[in-house]
């Protein structure tokens, strides 16, 4: 039997190549189904960008008011990686039908979350490094990690793959940031009294975060996580 290299006009003129594609190896088990449509994802990305932009600005404000030199230098790197995260979210927005001017648009999910962000940024004087870092590394960033992971589990794995890729990339940094912050806080909190300060600050902000509904304003609507 001769091999037909190109299809012709009639049904008997098909090629002999089996219907085989890269998607079959391994089998593509993803389904065209996700919890968020284009508008919902765009809104969430704007919310994510709001949190990242304010996190970056807050850390920038703090560097001059933190006496510990390794904390200053460590935050310098985290500021840059947080800016990259906000930038990636901004670049995704025009792809989600938000218009080309959407690159710089950030939006808090609600006033309560905006107030929470301001509460995180509130500590100012040099004796409050523990309060500053606990707000960011014990509460805000772990919350963002949780929501980004949840988004990746719930969104349409094929249609919204660009957002998933962005979040995967950002998550890698975020986990490093949490580990760094945790190590710094463990070092700074060398007595029970200091550990208590960390705990009180984290608990207070955690309560405010839950009350606000979190970065997307939908904490209570989230289904239980797989874990």
């Amino acid at each position, binding site marked *: 039997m001769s091999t037909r290299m190109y299809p012709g006009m009639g049904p008997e003129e098909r090629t002999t190549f089996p219907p085989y594609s890269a998607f079959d190896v391994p089998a593509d088990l993803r389904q065209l189904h996700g919890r968020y449509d284009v508008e919902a994802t765009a809104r969430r990305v704007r919310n994510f960008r709001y949190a990242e932009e304010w996190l970056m600005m807050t850390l920038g404000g703090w*560097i*001059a008011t933190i006496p510990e030199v390794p904390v200053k*230098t460590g935050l*310098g790197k985290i500021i840059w990686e947080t800016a990259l995260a906000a930038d990636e979210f901004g670049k995704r927005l025009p792809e989600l039908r938000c218009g080309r001017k959407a690159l710089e648009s950030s939006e808090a999910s609600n006033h309560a979350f905006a107030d929470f962000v301001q509460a995180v940024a509130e500590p100012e004087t040099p004796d409050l490094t523990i309060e500053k870092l606990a707000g960011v590394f014990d509460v805000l960033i772990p919350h963002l990690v949780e929501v980004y992971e949840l988004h990746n589990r719930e969104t349409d794995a094929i249609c919204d793959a660009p957002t998933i890729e962005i979040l995967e990339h950002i998550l890698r940094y975020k986990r490093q940031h949490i580990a760094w912050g945790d190590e710094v806080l463990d070092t700074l909190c060398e007595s029970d009294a200091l550990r208590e300060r960390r705990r009180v600050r984290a608990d207070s902000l955690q309560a405010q975060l839950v009350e606000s509904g979190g970065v997307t304003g939908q904490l209570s609507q989230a289904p239980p996580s797989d874990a």
Partner: protein
Amino acid sequence: MKRFIPHEELARDSRFVRQDNAQVNVLASLPDDLDVVVGVFEKFSPMIEASVQGTAAQPLFEKYGPGFMLTILNEPLDPEAPAALTRLLLRMHGIFVGELQALEGAARSLWDFPEAPWEFKMNMARQCWDEGRHVQIFEKLLTHLGGEVGMFPESTFLFEAACSEDPAMRVAGVNRGLEGLACDVFRDMIRYAEKTDDEVMKQAVDYVLADEITHVRFGSEWVREFTKDSPEHLERAQEFRREVDRRFSFGGARSDREDAAIPIAWEDRVEAGFSQEELEELTQLAGEGPSKQTLVDAAEILRERYLAERRDPGHESVS
């Protein structure tokens, strides 16, 4: 958290000692008059002495008197000169705290100007990472040379001079004034490292210099952008940068004089976006102030008077 903080509120750990910025500010405005230079430094003597107590600069004060900074600042670094290592460490420590203040200046720009364009924030965020690495690099170079953080007092005049509440002036001051000075100092440090075959220092400082050129470029672009609709605003930003450059010239120590302690790095500055006209202007204003000879004579008079006072407290010397 409030916007805009004064330099007194820059947070430091217990290793650091502050130096009154008045000394540096006065140095930048001194005329070429021997009596005035000597008089000013004698007036500041108690303040200078107090600020060096317990630091590695104390022996220099005890040897040269209140004019020791004139000698340190105005003589080019020479590995064969007396107290060469102390002078090298003093400069390295000055660079270290300068990087710290540059980090703080760039970082505060993120908080102080929340309405600034996103690209500006991206540039400042990138600068935060770079300056943070520079702090780490110069801390390691200090150790490499046998020094340590806090061994000399810190003057916060860089932050004080450069951090304006106007974003155009902030970038003119921090990114063009402060970072421009860094280009001059680092090119000189690379020359010193070549003279002493210090490959570690040469390579590290060369990388830092590459970063600084990028930061000056950020400044050049953002001054243009922030002032594009107002020639009057541009002129104010340029005047602010001139004033910063005047103060950062330390009475001619950083200048285009043949025997300047810190020569102006023309080629690096051109690459960073300084125009020929700006560089000629910098040369002119950096050359203002006391001549090299005036400073050398003043340092000698101050040393003699100080040592005479120590030998015979209360005596009156005649110059």
